[in-house]
């Protein structure tokens, strides 16, 4: 009896210490996740919405939600895929819930396709090449604008984020076959846009 009472406080202290360490580890893990994946999530949301402020807001919400549910993340997929899934759902919810009516009205916050096309990677050779690249980018934006929400998501994940089909399927909750079908349709539209005006 005396043995048990002597050990019990020590066990409780150890358990508290272990719990504290686990919490510290979880916080450190999550900090790494934020530092590593935040730019990518922001980029995907920016490409989806063409609205910098909205993309920032949704990115914040995404990581807030991830932080709340970090304990339940089992690692079945990569952290990036898990985060992307949260971001896609947030984006969907954003356009669907009641507040969306307000956002729809202020959709003018999204930049024009011209403005979005102005951003080009530095290093283009001649002015002619630069102009050609800008025109191509504008046409791709034009075709992206005409895609359905799901097609756009799949297209951006594939050709901007360069994710594998399996990763896209996991992030979107679609089968690989469906992802391929969406990609094919999206590419067809891009091809038509580029070919039709060439």
């Amino acid at each position, binding site marked *: 009896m005396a043995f048990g009472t002597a050990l019990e406080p020590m066990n409780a202290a150890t358990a508290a210490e272990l719990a504290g360490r686990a919490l510290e*580890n979880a916080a450190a*893990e999550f900090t*790494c*996740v934020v530092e*590593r*994946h935040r*730019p*990518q999530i*922001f*980029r995907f949301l*920016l*490409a989806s919405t063409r609205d*910098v402020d909205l*993309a920032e807001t949704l990115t914040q919400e995404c990581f807030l939600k991830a932080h709340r549910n970090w304990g339940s993340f089992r*690692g079945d997929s*990569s*952290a*990036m*895929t898990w985060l992307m899934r949260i971001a896609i759902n947030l984006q969907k919810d954003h356009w669907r819930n009641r507040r969306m009516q307000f956002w729809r009205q202020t959709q003018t916050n999204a930049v024009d396709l011209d403005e*979005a*096309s102005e*951003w*080009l*990677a*530095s290093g283009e050779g001649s002015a002619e090449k630069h102009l050609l*690249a800008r025109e*191509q*980018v504008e*046409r*791709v*934006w034009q075709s992206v604008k005409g895609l359905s929400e799901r097609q756009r998501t799949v297209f951006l994940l*594939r*050709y*901007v984020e*360069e*994710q*594998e*089909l399996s*990763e896209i399927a996991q992030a979107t909750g679609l089968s690989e076959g469906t992802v*391929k079908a969406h*990609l*094919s349709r999206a*590419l067809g539209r*891009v*091809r038509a846009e*580029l*070919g039709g005006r*060439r």
Partner: protein
Amino acid sequence: MSWMERLAGKPEKADGLGALAALHECEPGDLAVEEALKNFRLSVHAWSDAAYGRPRTAVQVVRHRSWRLAAGWALAGVLMAGGVSGGVYERHQKLEHAKIAAAARLAEQQRAVQEQQRLVREEQIQEEENLLAKVDSDVSRQVPSAMEPLAQLMDDQAK
């Protein structure tokens, strides 16, 4: 799977060859499409990098909050002042009513006293009048008999 492995994920491709190679796999390749997609990807990356690195304007949010805070305090102040002044006004009104009621009661009492005094005075006057009337009647009844001899004398001298 350790958390480091979970975090590691897939390294970002620098040249985008993976997706473009897949484009070849999915459908017959087209150089123009490939180039356009590459430019599109680089453009989005450039835009995102620029937007991600832009300075955040937190001042506006703070100002907005402070404005709300100030408005909240002002509203609370107005409500409090309204409540206090309402209470004071109500108390003042009660006091006024009490004063008026007291004055009315006093006036009523004074009126009653005056009425009583008037009744007493009237009663006294009445009593005095009655007394005088009695005296008058008594005197008027006695004088003629007392004056009888003088009247007869006056008559005799006239003859």
